[in-house]
């Protein structure tokens, strides 16, 4: 294994069993609905630090799970 992600149904598995999914996040400061949609379509928060994200357990239950990973260290923090 390398980065290990815990699937609440299947247990802890290497990252390679999963498919990454971004949890899109449009800041509340963008008020205009059209601008919100445009931001959601293309922009990324892309933080260096803890970020909630979704992973699809392709090799196991084939369901999405959500974790918090620190992109600075690749540690799963939640």
């Amino acid at each position, binding site marked *: 294994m390398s980065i290990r992600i815990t699937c609440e*149904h299947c247990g802890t*598995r290497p990252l390679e*069993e999963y498919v990454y999914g971004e949890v899109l996040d449009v800041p509340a400061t963008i008020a205009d609905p059209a601008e919100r949609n445009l931001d959601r379509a293309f922009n990324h928060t892309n933080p260096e630090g803890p970020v909630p994200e979704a992973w699809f357990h*392709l090799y*196991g*239950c084939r*369901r999405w799970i959500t974790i918090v990973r620190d992109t600075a260290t690749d540690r799963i923090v939640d």
Partner: protein
Amino acid sequence: MLEVLAVTRVVAAPDSLDRATFPSGSIVLRTAPDDAMVIGGGTVQVDDLHAIVREDAGWSGVWVNRAPSEAYLQASCSWPRPSVRPAFAQGAIAHLPVKLWLTEERTLFVFPTALTADFVERTPQEWSA
């Protein structure tokens, strides 16, 4: 011996699935909270009106005695198997999506029939003989 398994898939609300009754003698693999893979014949009773219950011919399996299966898994499976048997586990084994049913004496390897050729290539010859 490698065989096509008689499987019934039951997709239902998780709490309904918790209450469901399965045919005696069947093996029930809870592959997801809302999904049960029932191996063996018989009728499943589930109280979810919207449950999807389907015969599923897409799975094959092979029973392997415990010792050789553990030896194989040590060289093909990077994650720890449950320490107590009987148990169900699923994940990548030899880079294939495999479901395991582990009993005291034996291990059942379950995989999509469409991947049989890959499974055979990655497991001991005698399993598919």
